[in-house]
């Protein structure tokens, strides 16, 4: 039994390791084909990541990614595909910024208000998809794609100066107005040159612990995983599948709402046209890479953030930084393929093992029968 567990552990690591190797090799092939040095970009990226300021950037970016990936992962555990994390994140960040700029409360209260608004808006937006799925049977994949685009339009309309937006003097940008300083989340100062790590990054880490605890140690988490594994079996054992779908959609949207908080509370203090987009889609990549496991997601978030931030320096050395995007795409594909291959291999191994044991048992039995005769 113990040996079998070790095999599973090896298999669990073999998947991502295989995927990363394949992705690196494929990226090198792309580099070779385009007539550049296939190894130099990696060296430049690692060297760039050895500077403290880049490291701080990576950690900060990873915090945002981590929350987005957790939001996706909650859905995945339930067999729900929340493609709408991106829309939920943007709408939530914008509404939270609006509320944050409009009211001024003493420190912690202001932050709490902004965070709660963000979670509620995110949950509201994903809740639409949840309600459509539970009451009308609409696939959450399609409805969340639609909701993403609707969120884009809604944000674009709300941020117009004639509605709720503000146009800073002498700029083409539109913002939602600045959040007063009481709503700034204190960060961890890493020295003058390095900048600071957003305080909310630690909240993100705490969310990971909560995610683990809820899923692994509570009745709700058990129900959620059971429904994800087999909705009909869960229903038979008394789980209200519809309620679970709606709840997990709301939770997913709530976490997606949090994803904008590190940037909003730690750095930007306003939602503007250049607020980062596409975080939700990166979150899907990271959740897949991390296999919905809180620790796995943390490593994946760091990896993707590393690719993002350390590739910025490639331009100075005459390499195209877009190679990092290609690498991300290749990582997703090789990750999902390698997981599937490893899963099949594991399954076959298990079947073989059980088959052998049964055959051995059967042989024993026939021997006994033979002796009895």
């Amino acid at each position, binding site marked *: 039994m113990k040996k079998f567990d070790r095999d599973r552990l090896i298999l669990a690591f073999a998947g991502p390791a295989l995927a990363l190797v394949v992705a690196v090799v494929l990226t090198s092939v792309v580099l070779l084909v385009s007539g550049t040095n296939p190894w130099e970009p990696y060296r430049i990226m690692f060297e760039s990541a050895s500077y403290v300021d880049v490291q701080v950037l990576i950690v900060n970016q990873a915090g945002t990614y981590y929350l987005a990936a957790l939001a996706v992962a909650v859905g995945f555990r339930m067999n729900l595909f929340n493609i709408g994390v991106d829309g939920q994140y943007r709408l939530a960040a914008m509404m939270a910024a609006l509320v944050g700029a409009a009211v001024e409360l003493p420190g912690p209260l202001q932050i709490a208000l902004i965070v709660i608004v963000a979670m509620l808006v995110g949950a509201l937006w994903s809740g639409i998809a949840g309600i*459509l799925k539970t009451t009308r*049977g609409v696939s959450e994949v399609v409805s969340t794609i639609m909701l993403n685009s*609707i969120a884009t339009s809604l944000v674009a309309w709300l941020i117009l100066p004639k509605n709720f937006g503000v146009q800073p003097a002498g700029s083409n940008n539109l913002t939602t107005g600045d959040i007063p300083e009481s709503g700034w989340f204190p960060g961890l100062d890493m020295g003058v040159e390095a900048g600071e790590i957003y305080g909310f990054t630690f909240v993100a880490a705490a969310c990971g612990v909560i995610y683990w605890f809820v899923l692994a140690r509570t009745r709700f988490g058990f129900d959620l995983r059971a429904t994800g594994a087999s909705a009909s079996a869960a229903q038979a054992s008394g789980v209200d599948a519809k309620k679970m779908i709606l709840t997990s959609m709301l939770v997913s949207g709530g976490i997606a709402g949090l994803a904008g908080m590190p940037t909003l509370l730690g750095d930007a203090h306003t939602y503007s046209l250049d607020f980062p987009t596409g975080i939700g889609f990166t979150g899907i990549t990271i959740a897949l890479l991390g296999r919905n496991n809180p620790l796995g997601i943390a490593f994946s978030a760091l990896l993707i953030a590393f690719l993002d931030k350390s590739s910025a320096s490639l331009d100075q050395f005459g390499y195209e930084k877009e*190679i990092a995007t*290609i690498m991300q795409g290749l990582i*997703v*594909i090789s990750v999902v393929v390698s997981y599937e291959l490893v899963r099949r291999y594991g399954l076959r191994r298990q079947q073989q093992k059980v088959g052998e044991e049964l055959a051995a048992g059967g042989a024993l039995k026939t021997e006994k029968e033979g002796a009895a005769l």
Partner: protein
Amino acid sequence: VTTTTGTVAATSGKPRKRGGRPGLTPSVLLLIIAGALALVSLVRLISGADDITSAGQVAGALELAIPIGLAGLGGLWAERAGVVNIGLEGMMILGTWFGAWAGYQWGPWTGVLFGIIGGALGGLLHAVVTVTFGVNHIVSGVAVNILAVGATRYLSEFTFDTAEGGSSKQSPRIDAITEITVPGLSDWMHDLQARHWFLVSDLAGVIGGLVTGLSLLTVVALLLVPGTWWLLWRTPFGLRLRSCGENPVAAESLGVNVYRYKYVAVVISGGLAGLGGAFLAIVSTGIYQEGQTGGRGYIGLAAMIFGNWMPGGMALGAGLFGFTDSLKLRGGAENVHAMLLLLAILLVLVVARQLHRRKYLPAVLSAAVAALLFVWYGLTDQVPSQFVDAAPYVTTLLVLALSAQRLRMPKANGLPYRKGQGA
């Protein structure tokens, strides 16, 4: 717009005489279009927004609908064979890039060919990952989208950036494809349309839009819709392909090579999306621009669902989305404002139908929304363009919410299939 009868689910198990959902035969489709035209004409007379059925408007709507329709057609091919294709957007992006890259060097038709090849490559990747490796279709589609963005940006750095008249985000100009205008008829229709008569002028506007400055590629794209219908619903090949989407295990038992059919379907799907992308780059704008597709792959998917996985319905959806887009582009605010009235009148018709069927609660709800729209129309002069952007998506959500139970996607769509492991 939805004309489904409630019999789709009940008859799904039986072989059907005519393809598609009962009620959406070509004649019914024509009837819907005629009714819609009469309604639009009425709205035009009331609101005075004469541009909503002008020849220019119709031509614009057609040009905007084609890429959406091609993406939708691509989605149709893949999903009829049981493979969900979220990667349409990425395949379209590949189509714009390859189309423009070959187009500016060797002429527009070579560009079209390369656009198709580019999209088909994306389709092939999707097929390898989903069919051979059995990975979740949506995951693979998302990956294709990410990869397409990265690959085209990377490639632009080497090609367009160093070309004359191009930059890393934009290609040099591509020669235009021949446009045809039917002499005589076109002028006559423009004359008729300028008189603003009820229905006659609107019909003239539609015909005028169809015979003036029509790109040859548009004609090809339009022919692909009946072509797809014929291939998928009238040939043994199509029957086998659709059987892979409905019940692959049964298809396998009858000797159909399910893997091969899925591969063919997904590669064609990518090719069609690529053609849609090439159309954007070569016909719509004449250049490649980064981010040019702007989510049209997703709208195409929406059009396909809107059309209940049928070519005719899909074309109707694509036409509707293209029309809303073009309303906004041409003199926008006033035209779209008139659409509020159209929507309100449509809802009144829905109320009448629901009352007839004695569905009182939905009737009251629809009446309330209709009243709100009338008030909105009366109190304002224009609709914010951002709301117009969202219109196709909101429409799709509403259609899904109101008729999801009546829509019927291929039964085994999105499900994993392994040869020889059917239960």
